[in-house]
């Protein structure tokens, strides 16, 4: 909705300083950028990834001794939600060849390829089939499909963008399979943006040497998800979909092979035992942990479940400390909260301003530095603007773009954003936007090899849950591609693997063992996880929930 009268009053302060700032911009004068030393200071003090405050070493498990954000660390050191002595594995509720955990793009691709390979599949998903980060990805999907491009350059761009921290075999797989993924989607009837002769429309993106970003309107992820979901629904003889059934724990057999999982029916609160010869983790990322309270762009179920379950069976992870924050996520209106405002807005000259309409930073610092400066201004200096729902923001003065470059520039250069705000009664060519850093993507995740295999036989991982392919920094369009590439690989590989598998007695011993480790490490009152869904109850409401016993008794 449009700005409230109180907010409009504050905007007058922005308007008051605008003429001077526009004059400054026209003279090519800028608020001074930070020196490298100052950058380091502000990052260490205020950037959630750099701050020492709020980080710690984990004391147990495969990543023992590694440093994580508090919110991540406490989930790695968490206890099971299942009372082990009450769980009965002897009579499975479901038996299948391949169990896919997660119903987003990676999980669905895996289910399709596993069924192609002849396997019977159960796909268990926390929310509805398709509720995922895949469906939210707007920009596009990378693949070296053009003549001037090749997997070689896809590799180079990706590993360079990741500051050479990426796991090489995964990047190689990604670059190799990317065109195959696109061809697969095309064959499934995905509506790509194409020229009249069928040539794919491709675009550049930050860090690309070739135009490699394929898209479907401005809802590429949604189109991918719709298509693969529809195809899975066509195969109900091979793929059984269990919605609102997140996994709570993995099951191993006595030999240590993955042997299924325990699902939790969110509606009836029953646990189901699924016996499966192979399990594919495709549970997505951790945006909904709201590290340090940040808003996020993720879907409702992004709570790191897969990493937690994998950790307890001995599968470690990498780069989980690296989170992609975007400095300018929308904080008003509420419908747009978390929406990313492209760097282009600042590139076109828009200043970032505090509540008094004053500049406090160079608007085009690197992404992480910019984020840190915004946080500092709001939290340390107390000069943020608070929305009617208690969100903190800073002004991004988009109207000055028209004043610098001529009327109509905002509308022409930022058409989608213009419409998104106009729909809610805000004209961003006349009124500034209110922004704050936003949590976008989990760069790291569980360890796999190029066939999406973990160190546990029969356990695979694909999509945002796995780590290494992006290193510490992900390029646009590689996440949608890794979902398809590794989802497909996991499904195909699992279908092959199950042919020679003989499952022994199922067990949850690994859970008991892990919980003993927690006790031995002196971890008291560990969190219970997977947490499955975030809790957005207000403090006031929580304080009034006086019962510990559900209505109707235990």
């Amino acid at each position, binding site marked *: 909705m449009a700005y409230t009268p109180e907010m409009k009053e504050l905007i007058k302060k922005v308007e008051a300083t605008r003429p001077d700032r526009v004059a400054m911009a026209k003279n090519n004068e800028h608020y001074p950028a930070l020196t490298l030393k100052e950058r380091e200071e502000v990052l260490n003090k205020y950037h959630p990834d750099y701050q020492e405050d709020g980080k710690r070493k984990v004391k147990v498990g495969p990543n023992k001794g590694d440093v994580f954000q508090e919110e991540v660390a406490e989930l790695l050191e968490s206890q099971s939600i299942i009372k082990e002595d009450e769980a009965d594995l002897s009579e499975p509720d479901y038996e299948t060849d391949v169990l896919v955990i997660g119903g987003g793009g990676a999980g669905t691709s895996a289910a399709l390829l596993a069924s192609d390979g002849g396997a019977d599949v159960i796909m268990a998903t926390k929310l509805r089939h398709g509720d995922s980060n895949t469906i939210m990805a707007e920009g596009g999907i990378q693949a070296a499909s053009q003549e001037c491009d090749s997997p*070689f350059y896809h590799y*180079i761009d990706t590993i360079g963008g990741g500051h050479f921290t990426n796991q090489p*075999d995964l990047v190689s797989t990604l670059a190799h399979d990317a065109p195959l993924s696109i061809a697969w989607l*095309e064959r*499934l009837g995905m509506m790509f943006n194409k020229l009249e002769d069928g040539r794919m429309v491709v675009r550049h993106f930050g860090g690309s040497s070739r135009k490699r970003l394929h898209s479907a309107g401005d809802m590429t992820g949604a189109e991918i998800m719709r298509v693969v979901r*529809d195809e899975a629904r066509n195969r109900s003889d091979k793929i059984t979909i269990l919605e609102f059934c997140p996994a709570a724990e993995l099951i191993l057999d006595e030999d240590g092979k993955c042997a299924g999982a325990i699902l939790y029916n969110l509606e009836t609160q029953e646990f189901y035992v699924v016996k499966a010869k192979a399990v594919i983790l495709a549970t997505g990322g951790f945006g909904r942990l709201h590290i340090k309270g*940040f808003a996020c762009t993720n879907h409702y179920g992004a709570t790191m479940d897969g990493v937690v379950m994998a950790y307890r069976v001995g599968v470690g992870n990498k780069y989980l400390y690296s989170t992609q924050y975007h400095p300018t996520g929308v904080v008003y*209106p509420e419908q747009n909260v978390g929406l990313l405002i492209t760097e282009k807005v600042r590139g076109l000259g828009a200043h970032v301003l505090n509540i008094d309409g004053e500049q406090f930073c160079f608007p085009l610092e690197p992404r992480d530095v910019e984020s840190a400066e915004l946080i500092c201004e709001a939290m340390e200096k107390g000069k943020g603007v608070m929305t009617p729902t208690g969100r903190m923001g800073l002004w991004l003065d988009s109207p000055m773009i028209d004043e610098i470059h001529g009327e109509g520039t905002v509308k022409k250069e930022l058409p989608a954003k213009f419409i998104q705000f106009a729909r809610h009664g805000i004209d961003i060519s006349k009124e500034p936007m209110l922004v704050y850093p936003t949590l976008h993507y989990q760069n790291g995740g569980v360890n796999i090899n190029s066939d999406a295999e973990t160190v546990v036989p029969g356990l695979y991982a694909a999509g945002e849950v796995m780590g290494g392919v992006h290193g510490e920094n992900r390029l646009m369009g590689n996440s949608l591609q890794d979902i398809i590439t590794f989802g497909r690989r996991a499904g195909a590989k699992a279908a092959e693997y199950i042919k020679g598998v003989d499952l022994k007695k199922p067990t949850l011993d690994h859970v008991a063992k892990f919980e003993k480790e927690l006790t031995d490490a002196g971890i008291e009152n560990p969190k219970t996880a997977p947490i499955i869904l975030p809790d*957005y109850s207000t403090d006031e409401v929580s304080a009034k929930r006086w019962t510990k016993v559900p209505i109707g008794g235990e």
Partner: protein
Amino acid sequence: MSETEKTQAPKMATGDRAILPEGARTIPVYIMGKRYEVPETLTIMKAMEYSGFKFVRGAGCRGGICGACPTVYRKAGDYKIYFGLACQTVVEPDMFLAQIPFYPANRTAYDLEEIGGEADAVHALYPEVFRCVACNNCTKACPMDVDVLAYISAVKQGDMAKAAEISFDCIQCGMCASRCMGEMPQFHIGQLVRRIYGRYIQPQAEHLKKRVEEINSGKYDKMLEDLTSMSKEKLTKLYTEREREPDLAPSGEWMPEDTQYL
């Protein structure tokens, strides 16, 4: 964060949890008939959470694209029925609202490779399209402003391309089907049509076909293998020296000087 160590920091909303700051206003809304006071400017979804509701169904991406949170509402004194996504619609005073997280709809399974690209296939799978009476309730119910009647009309007219394009923004929330006098599942029909369009009507990408053949013939295997074992120095050099395709180069026309890795 504890209150003591961050005294300067104001209490603010965290994650998606809203708070009511000093001096902010609340408005009354009726959630399934029961009155709650919620901060103005909140979305329906966050207003329900603010009121103490915890979603299992009825919340998905929270960003207006997954179709999990369709909501119907009425306004006091107004006979009209309104539709919106709970995550994209802001509360108004005296709004009476309820969510419809699931609506059953007939779906017919099919094999895309078998059915071919003709509209006859759609008519055979969903003969109920001919039950449309053009009442337009579907279009009125669409929270994405898709002209549902127009794409169903296009399906009847056998115009797959038109139906695919008009239905493209569909998020499959099912509200059209919930209001349909002809009892048809518009959103499934739209999905079928779009896949037929993508598979049979849009021309396929020849350059992609060629690239797939190259990859399957093993053309890039050695190159990629070399890259995976390459030193950081060498990779850095390749990275910094790589040529950039000009922004305005028409697709498929520009070629780099160095073509040995293509």
